Each structure stands twice: as C-alpha cells, then as structure tokens.
C-alpha cells in the first residue's frame, strides 16, 4: 500500500525513465508534455536533463546521447514532433546504441494547441516501434520497456501519450533504479553516417527490423486479450480503452493494444474470429481501423465514432448504442470565461499601443501573448506555429511592397519562441532586405507552459547558472543596424509609441525588444536589481471618473465595469497601464 503513488502520466514517464537507468533527457516545453522533464529534474543526482531551444535540437541531442551509449529520452507536444521530424525519420535508419525514446504528447480536443494532429501516423511514416500507455502505471512500465526494446531492435521507440494520459492521475508502484551501465561507443561509419550510399543499405534493412518488431507485437503481453462474451469484441488502445471499458462493460471481450506499430495483425485476426461484432475504438484518425480493414477484417469504427475532438464514455455510448444518461438542464446560460492576459502582464501595454495603430498587419506567435488577439485588444492578425510570426511577417511585407499599399507589418514573438525558431526567421528578414518590424517580447521566462527556464533567463532546468543570450547583440550579429534595435519598457506607453513610430517609418529591418518580467514569475535577484518590481496598486477616484471606460479597453481583468468602474485591489499589481490611458487623470497609484 505504501508503495502506491498517485501520479500523472507525465510524472510516471519520468519515474519510468529514472528506474530504467536513463542518463540523458532533453525537451522543449509544450502542453501537455512539459511536466515530464520538470519531474526528471528531481532525479538530477542520477541523470542529466535539459531544456533545449526547440524540439529538433532536443531530439538530436538525445540521438547523440544514445550513440554515445547512454539511455536517452526526448519529450515534446505533438506539434513539436513536426519540428523534430527531420532527425526522427533518419534516426530510424541509424538505429541506436543506448536505448532512445521519443515521447509524443498529442492533444485530442485541442485543450491548448493550434491543431489536432494524430502523431501515430509518424510511427507508420518513419517506421518507429510505438507504445501507447492507457494510464500512469503503463506510462511508467512502457517507458522502461520502450528503452529496452529500443536496444533490442536497434530502433528509436515512440511513446505516444495524449492529454488525458499525460494529465490524469492514477496509482503507480515504484521500483528501484536499475543498474544499467553506459554502453561503450564504437565508431561505425556505415551505421551512423547517413550518406545516400549508407542510407540506401539501411533503408533496405528496415524491412527485416519491421518483421522482427511485428513478431514481437504479435507475441508480447502488452497486446492482450480479455475474453468475456462473444457478441461484442472491442479493439482499443490508450485512454480510449478506459472509455471503452466503461461503455461496453464486463460482457464484452477486449483486445487491448499497448504496442500499435507494428500492429499485431495475427492477434487481431484471431480475436476477430472469436466475436460476432468487432468495434475499433480510437481517438482521432482511424489509424488502427485503416490497417485492420486493409487486412480484410470487417469492423465498426469511424463510421459511428467521431474522428476528431476528444472522446469520452458519453460520446462513445451515444455513437454506438444511441444512449444518453439522464441529465439536469437549465435554460440559464453561464457567461464564457475565456483566458486573458493577467493583471499586470507586461504584454498588455505593448498590445494596447499596437491596437491603436491603423493600417498595420500583426503576425503573432505561440505563447501567452497569443491572447493579444482576444477582445478588447484584438491586436493580432495571424497565429500559425512556433516562430512563424517573423517569417510570415516578412513574406507579407514583401507582397504589400509589390501591391503598392502602405500597410506595414509588425511581427510579435516571445523570448522563448524567438530562441525556438524565430532567429532563423529574423535572418531571413535581414538577409533578404525585409521591411517588417519584429517585436521580441522578452518577459524573462517561458510563460504559457508554466515558467520554464530558457536560454535568455540565466538558469538551466537543473537550476544551475547559465550564460544568457544577449538578444540585442544577437540581432546586430545577424545584420540589424544598432540604431534599428529599440529596447523599451512595455509598461511605458510613450516609450512603446515612440519605438513604433520610429520603426514603422524605416524602410529597413527593425527590432523592438519589450523587456519586463512576467508578473507571475518567481523573480530572481537579477530581476529585482534590473526592474522596479515593488508592490503597487492603482485606484480609481470615483469623483474624477467620467465612466468613459477607456481603461476597460485595456482588457485588464482587475478592472470591473459595472455601475461604477473599479479596480480589484487583490489582483491589481499597479502596472499603471490604466493610469496612462485615463484621459481624466482619475486613476492614481496607491501604496
């Protein structure tokens, strides 16, 4: 009993990696994967782990660690695998030395993502052994198994998680860390140098590896039958299996798959022959269903079960049996509660100033500052992916130049996202004589995912002091003129406006760096020395207030617009943006 721990799937992956003798882990933060590395950092006496600037770098570093003989892990959200796809496909050719595991955390239902891709398709496309845990115990066990299988089949293993597996807690039993020694490194050009000649040989050998993995898939006990009644059989994997158990109950039989690439088609065929009606229950794409149908096995799947959005027992029950549980209903409607930039958020001042500009296209990026697109600021025109703000802005500016309109382009990107993939985009602007204005919103931390260190914060994941990237100097080094780099305090609207006025009138690349720490950040000594972070509040003088509501248009969640306009003293941080926009001088700072 005492050895039972209630862990999230992410915490369990970290525990499994620790128990499996992992020595190297690298990741870029991304919901729902972030806590894997944060938890691993607690085992820093036994292993090394780091935040990489992006997912491609994280996976490449893990591949290097594996080649050097250590067990290694890279973790990322589903869209991060797109960034890391280049090394991923070729790592399937080189194989490994120490076990190598890639954790892909998919986000069905897009709780906090810009798309809903199904990364199981990567396993098929890159031919990677894939494991899919259905709860935290399996997340731990499959991480350990995955590292061992990676070594056995000389192949990177993909551990495919989803939001509900990552963030749900269930019980896990702990074991000791195994005595796994680092394997010796041997130079092997034919195996590790993927020139076309070597890679062609490796490509031809993939078939044999897939065959060996398929045999394992057909015989391993993580692909297991639960035979009960013969009327209904259900094939499922991941959290969808848990939902299926709720819906189909103890009378149905199940084929629960823990390894879903290569698929255990012999096992599936045998299971299908034992039941009258076969259901395939899976979230998102008909990944298993497609392969089962291709094998000539008839089944019911996406013809009834939705192929996008997150599943749950309700949805499956309604889809399969047309049943809904009786529920209470009210005609009253709760008002939506959309997320907003926090009270005191340093991004607010910049977006407020930007929202007043006419004839400006603002290309946005991924992070807290994406909320600059929300009402009442409405200050962003586009958001696609990490790093896209600067490159999309560059392309747009080139077209506005040709179409002869005087529309200007401002790209906004956070510090961590700039390090992730904004730097190469900015080189595109300088190298190709771009005219867009790039704004690096440096809030001294990776904000949206819950405050992870990054190359600009001066600390590592393991809590050690680190060199800080000098953003203005970096901009100069890639070709920006020193006089075209403006460093401003985003809480001072005049400073922001002056920088925007100057940058928007120049016909050459300009960068504005807004520098102020995230208000939720745990401030370092350096932060306290560099910024005035003393506690302040703002208050509205009700006699002077004319209820014009201009302060409300800053979108600050501390300002309440009712019969009177007031500021919530508990949440206000005294950032002073409302004070600066008030035309009647009715807002004052109080101690």
């Amino acid at each position: 009993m005492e050895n039972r721990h209630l862990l999230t799937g992410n915490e369990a992956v970290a525990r499994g990696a620790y128990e499996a003798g992992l020595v190297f882990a690298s990741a870029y933060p991304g919901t729902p994967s972030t806590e894997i590395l944060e938890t691993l950092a607690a085992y820093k006496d036994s292993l090394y782990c780091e935040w990489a600037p992006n997912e491609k770098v994280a996976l490449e570093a893990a591949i290097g660690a594996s080649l050097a003989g250590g067990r290694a892990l890279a973790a990322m959200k589903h869209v991060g695998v797109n960034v890391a796809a280049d090394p991923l496909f070729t790592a399937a050719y080189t194989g490994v030395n120490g076990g190598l595991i890639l954790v892909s955390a998919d986000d069905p239902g897009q709780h906090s993502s810009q798309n809903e891709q199904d990364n199981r398709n990567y396993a098929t496309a890159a031919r990677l052994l894939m494991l899919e845990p259905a709860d935290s115990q399996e997340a731990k066990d499959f991480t350990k198994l995955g590292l061992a299988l990676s070594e056995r089949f000389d192949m990177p293993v993909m551990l495919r998680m989803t939001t509900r597996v990552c963030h749900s807690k269930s019980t896990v039993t702990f074991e000791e860390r195994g005595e796994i020694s680092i394997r010796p490194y041997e130079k092997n050009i034919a195996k590790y140098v993927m020139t076309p000649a070597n890679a062609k040989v490796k490509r031809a050998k993939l078939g044999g590896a897939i065959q060996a993995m398929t045999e394992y898939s057909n015989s391993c006990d993580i692909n297991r039958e639960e035979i009960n009644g013969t009327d209904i059989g259900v094939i499922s994997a991941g959290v969808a299996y848990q939902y299926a158990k709720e819906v189909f109950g103890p009378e149905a039989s199940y084929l629960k798959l823990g390894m879903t690439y290569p698929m255990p088609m012999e096992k599936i065929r045998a299971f299908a022959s034992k039941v009258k009606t076969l259901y395939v229950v899976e979230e998102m794409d008909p990944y298993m269903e497609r392969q089962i149908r291709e094998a000539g096995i008839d089944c019911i799947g996406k013809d009834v079960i939705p192929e996008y959005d997150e599943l749950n027992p309700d949805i499956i029950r309604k889809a399969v049996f047309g049943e809904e549980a009786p529920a209470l209903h009210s005609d009253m409607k709760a008002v939506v509660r959309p997320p907003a930039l926090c009270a005191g958020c340093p991004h607010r001042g910049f977006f407020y100033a930007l929202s007043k500009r006419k004839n400006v296209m603002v290309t946005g990026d991924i992070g807290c500052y994406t909320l600059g697109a929300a009402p009442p600021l409405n200050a962003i025109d586009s958001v696609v992916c990490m790093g896209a703000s600067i490159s999309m802005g560059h392309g747009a500016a080139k077209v506005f130049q040709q179409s002869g309109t005087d529309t200007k382009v401002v790209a906004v990107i956070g510090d961590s996202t700039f390090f992730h993939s904004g730097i190469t985009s900015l080189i595109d602007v300088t190298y190709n004589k771009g005219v867009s204005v790039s704004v690096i919103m440096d809030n001294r931390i990776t904000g949206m995912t819950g405050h992870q260190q990054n190359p600009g914060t001066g600390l590592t994941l393991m809590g050690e002091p680190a060199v800080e990237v000098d953003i203005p100097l970096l901009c100069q080094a890639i070709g920006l003129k020193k006089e075209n780099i403006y460093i401003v305090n985003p809480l001072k609207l005049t400073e922001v406006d002056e920088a925007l006025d100057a940058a928007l009138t120049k016909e050459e690349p300009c960068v504005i760096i807004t520098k102020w720490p995230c208000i939720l950040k745990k401030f370092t000594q350096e932060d306290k020395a560099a910024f005035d972070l003393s506690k302040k509040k703002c208050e509205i003088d009700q006699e002077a207030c004319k209820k014009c509501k201009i302060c409300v248009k800053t979108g600050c969640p501390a300002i309440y617009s009712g019969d009177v306009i007031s500021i919530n003293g508990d949440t206000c941080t005294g950032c002073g943006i409302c004070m600066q926009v008030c035309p009647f001088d009715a807002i004052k700072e109080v101690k």
Partner: protein
Amino acid sequence: MKETKNILLVGVGGQGTILASKILSAGLLSAGYDVKMSEIHGMSQRGGNVSTQIRFGETVYSPIIGRGEADVIVAFETMEALRWIEYLKPSGKMVINDFEIPSVPIQMGAAEYPKGILEELAAKADVSVFRAGAIAEGLGNSKTMNIVLLGALVKVLNMPEIDWEQAICSNVKQGFEEINIKAFRAGEAQV
C-alpha cells in the same frame, strides 16, 4: 464499494481546487480505493475555468466523468455551478460556494453576471449553499476557502473511517496544519 463514485470540483484558476483534490485523493488512496483524477492544465492560470474530476471505487477505468454522472459537484464559484449542472446525477448533490468571480466579458460590460443562479439550481437539484469565503476570512485566513469547501464535500461523502486530518497535514505547508483543519471542520458543519 462496488460502484465507482464520481466527484467534480469546478471553479476558476487560482481558487485552490487542485490542493483540495490532492487532499481528497490522498484520503481515498489511504483507504485502499482505486483512484483516478483528471485535470486540464494549460490556460487556467490566465483566468479560465478549471475542473478537477475524481473517480474512486474498486476498479476505475475512465479518468473522466460524463454528463449526468457526478455524485457530488463542489462549485467553488457560483456561475461555475450553473456551467456544470448537466454533469450532476439527477439524484446527486451540489455544494455551492456563494462567491462570484466575474469573467472578462462581464468585467468589460459586454455581458451580465447571470442573476438568480442559486434559486434556479435549488429548484432543479439537491444543493447546499454557503459562503465559504466569509467563513475562511472569519477564521483569519481567506486562502483556506478551498479547505472549507473540502470539509463540506467530505461530510456529504460520509466517510468517517478515513483520517482526513492526516491527509490535510501531509499536503499543506508546514505551520498551516491547524488553520486548515479548522477550516475543514467549519466546512463540515455547513452541510
């Protein structure tokens, strides 16, 4: 207990639903139950609504609860009670904190905080309403509002065999054990 019990804690980011659910699950785990708990992280810190789902019993499969399936819902904020009413079992119990936090559209004057939520819900379901915020403030620490609500929930669950004080003590910051136990007992007295 053969049947799985479903509990839903709903509120607004920063109200302490996560600590309350942590203490609850620690207590349930100590009693030998299989426990699953699901939260959605992400943008909640930025003022969005939050929900924590806890399921316990002999063997629990799904970590999430469907519409009409919650045995108990504890709403840390009044409008969130309205938002989640469809998740309550028609025979279930709802504990509601009489505590309003306007959302951004309301603050901006673009929408109004719905009036008469408590009357509406009382007419539909078995509800207990009290002001946990005022109770916590009366005890001298407004941050223990979540533990007051946890006390009420535990009373509804009626599981005296579990050492809840132990579960509280091992999950709150050192030095805050006593005030949290007081808050817990004050919450129990409300239902």
